């Protein structure tokens, strides 16, 4: 006896006026399984730095943006200390809240009883008038008086999390994206046309999600992809130096090129083996 009958049996079973919530997991999203160990596809990139003996690299597919067809070009090996880090949600939260708040300057300011216009004179004599005793008409007790404990002037909420915590936040975000199948690796960002429609169709076909963040290393991007992403609100392109936890959480899926992966691994793994700074790292060291 079948107790539960699936209403998603076919397209005809779905009523036309059905309103699905936007955060519902799309049942038609085809999850590509992780690459099996015996694939015929070549490994296009292996890890540059030596891995610890007890860890093995994570393997993912490498796709193209040129053909909308679904077949991957090859495999990449990703460093487990960047892309397979334990999911520290508390660090992710810390970094996200820091990113939101450290730029904040609240300009709220209220006038204190000394700043409100007037109120220097004693309104009536101390004794004998029958009314309560007051010293000025702008004390916080009075209507129109100053605020006693209000916001005072521009306040800054600036603070810096330790560098290693911010780096760990990036690693946790990348690992989470990979673990949830929202990370896709592409060989390069070449597109046949600068048409934004092409990109939206490609993303829909590949089931990459509602919003896409494209990351590339280098100061110059191919013109086609710049023009295509200019008009689109949900598809954004950033250089690798601009990668941050907030953008990664805001966009549903993340597209990295092979050079970006190499760059990120190099920069993020350096923090695991570096000394503490004798002088700021912006100044030259012998191996930076």
């Amino acid at each position: 006896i079948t107790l539960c009958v699936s209403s998603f049996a076919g397209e005809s079973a779905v009523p036309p006026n059905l309103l699905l919530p936007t955060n519902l997991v799309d049942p038609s999203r085809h999850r590509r399984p992780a690459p099996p160990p015996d694939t015929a596809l070549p490994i296009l990139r292996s890890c540059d730095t030596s891995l610890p003996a007890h860890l093995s690299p994570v393997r993912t597919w490498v796709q193209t943006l040129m053909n909308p067809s679904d077949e991957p070009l090859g495999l990449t090996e990703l460093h487990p200390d960047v892309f397979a880090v334990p999911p520290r949600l508390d660090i992710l939260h810390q970094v996200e809240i820091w990113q939101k708040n450290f730029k904040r300057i609240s300009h709220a300011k209220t006038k204190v009883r000394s700043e409100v216009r007037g109120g220097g004179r004693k309104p009536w004599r101390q004794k004998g008038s029958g009314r309560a005793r007051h010293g000025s008409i702008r004390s916080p007790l009075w209507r129109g008086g100053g605020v006693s404990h209000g916001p005072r002037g521009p306040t800054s909420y600036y603070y810096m999390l330790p560098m290693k915590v911010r780096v760990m936040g990036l690693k946790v975000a990348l690992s989470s994206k990979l673990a949830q199948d929202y990370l896709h690796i592409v060989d390069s960002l070449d597109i046949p046309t600068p048409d934004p429609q092409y990109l939206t169709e490609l993303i829909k076909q590949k089931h990459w999600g509602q919003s896409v963040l494209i990351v590339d290393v280098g100061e110059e991007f191919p013109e086609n992809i710049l023009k295509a992403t200019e008009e689109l609100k949900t598809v954004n392109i950033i250089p690798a130096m601009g990668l941050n936890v907030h953008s990664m959480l805001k966009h549903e899926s993340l597209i990295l090129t092979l050079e970006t992966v190499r760059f990120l691994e190099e920069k993020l793994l350096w923090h695991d083996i570096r000394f503490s700074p004798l002088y700021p790292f912006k100044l030259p060291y012998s191996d930076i």
Partner: protein
Amino acid sequence: MSVSVCLRCSGLRGAVWSALRLRPPAPGSPCAAAGLRLFSAPAPGETRPSIEESTAEYKFVERLIPPSKVRHGAGKVSTGWVPPSPSPPDLPYMIRRSRMHNIPVYTDVTHGNRLITIVRKVEGDIWALEKDVKAFLKDVTGKDLPTQVNEVTMTLKVKGHFDRELKEWLLNKGF
């Protein structure tokens, strides 16, 4: 002496120079025809060496700039440092070395009398590590020591100062 003092005044200097006509002689002027030249200018047949910029001495400064990365641990050292075994031990957990290649066991003292030993950088089954640590410390001290496992940060805390014993034990295991 007074003349030299006067010459140092910049206002007078220009007047003196132009009066003595100490600029290099123009090619068609009578001074050049007479064979007079400034001492600083080279003789007609003489070649003075041109200014050379050499970077040969930069190495003396470059060797003073410090490195930013910790070097890989050396093999045999007289300090008593033991390198980790090249193959990881066959246990359900793994304890990585710190960035200075040491065993990550640390001690802490709070309120003057609260002694705690912390084992950091644990990977894998931390509860198996806790069981082994409890058994080992039972052999060493004879007491059941309270321990705390933090699965989020993957650390193990033990009441008491046992850093020396735990470091030796982990070294013997091959971490």
